[in-house]
C-alpha cells in the first residue's frame, strides 16, 4: 500500500495565512513585540521604577535637542529632549520606553494566561455539553447565565469579591472568556458527532474518552484557534481597562492601561504620556483581531458574523 502522508491542516493554514500581506504584517508585528517584551530587561535602557527627578515630564525624540537649544537661546528646559529617553519621561522622571516594554510584558502575559485558562475550561465544558445530551442543558444554562453580565461587569464582580490584584484580574478575565469557548465548541461537537467517521470509530470499539479527546477535539482545533486569537484581543483590552480603573495591575508595576490613567493628570504638560501606551494597546489589539479574522476565513468560515 502506498504511504499517503496527510498534511497537517494547521500547517497548511499557516502557509495560507502568510500569503496574505496584511496577516503577515500583523504576525510579524506581534512577533517582534512579543520578543521585545520577553527580552525587556535586556532591551529596556532603564528599570521600570528607576526615577530621575531632574528630568520629569520631558519630551521624547521629537523634543528640542540640547545643541539646538543652545543655538536658540532661552528655551524652556521642559521642552528639551532628555538624552537616552527616546519616548520621554513621566511625572517621576521614569523612562516611558522602558515602562512601555515592561507594561507590555504584563498586558501580553495576562492576555495569554487568561485566554489559556478560559480556553481550557471552556473547551472542556463545550466538549462535554456537545457530546453528552444529559450534560448539555445544565452546562449551557450556566453559560447563558454568565452571558447575562454584559461586557466587563462579570470581571468587576469577581474583582469586587476577591480584591484588586493582577492575579484576580487575570482570573476574572478568564472566567469571562469561558462561555465564548464553550458555546462555539459545543456547536462544533454537535455537528461532528453526526459525522460518519465518528460513528465508524465508535463501531470499532473506541471509548468515549478516545473519541472526544482525540477525534473530536482534533477537529475542533481550527475553531478553538480562531476564538483564542480573538479572545487575546479582548483580554488585552480588558486588562488595560481594569488597570485604568485601578482594578487590575497595581502600581508601581507598569501596565498600559494604568500608564494612561496616571498620565491623565499631566494631559496639559505631556499629552504623549497618554498617546503612547494607547497606541501600543491599539496596535496589539488590531493585530490580534486581523489575525483572528484571517484565520477564521481560512480555518472555519462558518464562524463569520
Amino acid at each position, binding site marked *: 500500500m502506498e504511504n499517503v502522508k496527510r498534511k497537517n491542516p494547521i500547517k497548511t493554514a499557516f502557509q495560507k495565512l502568510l500569503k496574505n500581506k496584511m496577516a503577515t504584517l500583523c504576525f510579524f508585528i506581534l512577533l517582534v513585540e512579543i520578543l521585545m517584551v520577553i527580552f525587556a530587561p535586556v532591551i529596556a535602557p532603564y528599570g521600570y521604577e528607576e526615577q530621575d527627578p531632574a528630568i520629569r515630564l520631558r519630551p521624547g525624540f521629537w523634543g528640542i535637542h540640547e545643541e539646538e537649544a543652545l543655538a536658540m537661546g532661552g528655551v524652556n528646559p521642559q521642552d528639551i529632549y532628555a538624552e537616552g529617553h527616546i519616548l520621554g519621561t513621566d511625572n517621576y522622571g521614569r523612562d516611558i520606553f522602558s515602562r512601555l516594554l515592561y507594561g507590555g510584558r504584563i498586558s501580553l502575559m495576562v492576555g495569554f494566561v487568561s485566554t489559556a485558562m478560559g480556553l481550557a475550561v471552556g473547551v472542556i465544558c463545550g466538549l462535554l455539553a456537545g457530546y453528552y445530551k444529559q450534560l448539555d442543558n445544565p452546562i449551557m*444554562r450556566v453559560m447563558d447565565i454568565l452571558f447575562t*453580565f454584559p461586557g466587563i461587569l462579570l470581571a*468587576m464582580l469577581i474583582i*469586587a469579591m476577591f480584591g484588586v490584584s493582577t492575579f484576580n484580574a487575570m482570573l476574572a478575565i478568564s472566567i469571562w472568556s469561558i462561555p465564548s469557548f464553550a458555546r462555539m465548541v459545543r456547536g462544533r461537537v454537535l455537528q461532528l458527532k453526526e459525522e460518519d467517521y465518528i460513528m465508524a470509530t465508535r463501531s470499532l470499539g473506541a471509548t468515549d474518552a478516545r473519541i472526544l479527546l482525540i477525534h473530536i477535539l482534533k477537529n475542533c482545533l481550527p475553531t478553538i484557534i480562531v476564538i483564542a486569537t480573538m479572545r487575546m484581543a479582548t483580554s488585552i483590552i480588558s486588562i488595560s481597562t481594569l488597570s*485604568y*480603573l485601578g482594578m487590575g495591575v497595581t502600581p508601581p508595576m507598569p501596565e498600559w492601561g494604568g500608564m494612561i490613567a496616571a498620565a491623565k493628570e499631566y*494631559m496639559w504638560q505631556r499629552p504623549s504620556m497618554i498617546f503612547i501606551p494607547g497606541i501600543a494597546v*491599539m496596535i496589539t489589539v488590531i493585530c490580534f483581531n486581523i489575525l483572528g479574522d484571517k484565520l477564521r476565513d481560512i480555518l472555519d468560515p462558518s464562524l463569520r*458574523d
Partner: protein
Amino acid sequence: MRKYVLKRILMMLVLVIGMTFIVFASLYIAPGDPAELVAGVGATEEDIERVRESLGLNESFFTQYITYLKKLLKLDLGTSFTTKQPILGEILVRLPNTLNLACAAMILSIIVGIPAGIISALKKDKLVDNVLTTGAMVGISIPNFWLGTMLIYVFAVVLKLLPSGGMTHFFWTPTGFQQAILPAVALSTSTIASFTRIGRSAMLDVLQSDYIRTAKSKGLKGTTVILIHALRNAMIPLLTQLGTSFGVLLGGAIITEQVFVINGIGTYLIDAIRKYNYPVVQSTVLIIATMFILVNLIVDLVYCVVDPRIKYE
C-alpha cells in the same frame, strides 16, 4: 406564537434567578465581614454582633438567599453601607445619566453603523468598502477609555470646543447634546464597528439570494430592490446585534462614565467596589444585568414579529 412568547418569558425568569444567585453567592463568599464594615471603625464586639443579628448574617446561606429574593420582589435593594440610604433611591438618581449616555451611543451606532455596512456591501471590494472595513477593524480594536481621554485632550483641552465631562441634561437638549457628544462617540466606536461588519455581511448574503435576482430580473430599479427587498431581510441579523450591543454599551458606559466624570451607575459601582460596599455592588450589577436580559427579551419578541419563521422552530 403564544407558546413562543411564554417560553421566552420563562427562560428570562430562569436567567434572572440564576443571575441573582451568582450575584448573591459571589459576595457571600467574598472575604471580609460586612457586619464589621457596617458597624464602622471602633465598634465593640457586641456592636458588631448586634449588626450581624440585624442584618440576618447568622442565618444559613439559603435562608439568606431566600430573604434576599423576597426583598428584591418588594424592590428593596437594601441600604448602602457608606451613606446608610436606600440603594434603590441612589440608583434611580444615577440611572437616567447612564441610560442617557447608552441611548445616545446606541442612536449614533445605528445612524452611522448600519448605513456604513450597507454602503460597504454595495461597493464590495471598492475603495469605499476597504476604507469602511479598515475603519471598522480600528473601531473594534480601540480601547474606549483611551479614545475618550484623547477626545477630551483634542476637543476640550486643545480646541476648547466641548466640555471635558459631566452630564446634567438629556442629550436632546442643546446643553445635553454638547455634553453627550464626546462620551457617546468614545462609547459607540465598537458598536458602530460591529454594526458595520454585521450589516455588511448580512447585506452581502441577501444580495446573493435568488429572490433579489428575481426582483432585478423583473426590471425593478436598483434602489427599489435595495431599499424594499434587500434591506428588510438584512435587518434581521442586525436586530439580534442590537440586543447584544445594548449590553456592550451598558458595560462600556461604566468605563466611559469614569473617563468623563459622569455620575451614573457605573461610577456608583466602581466607587462601591473600592469601598467594599457590597450591597451597592450587588444591586448595581443586578440592575445592569436585568436591563440587559430585558432588552434581549424584547429583541427576541420583536424578532418573532419580523421573522415569522422562528415561531415554528
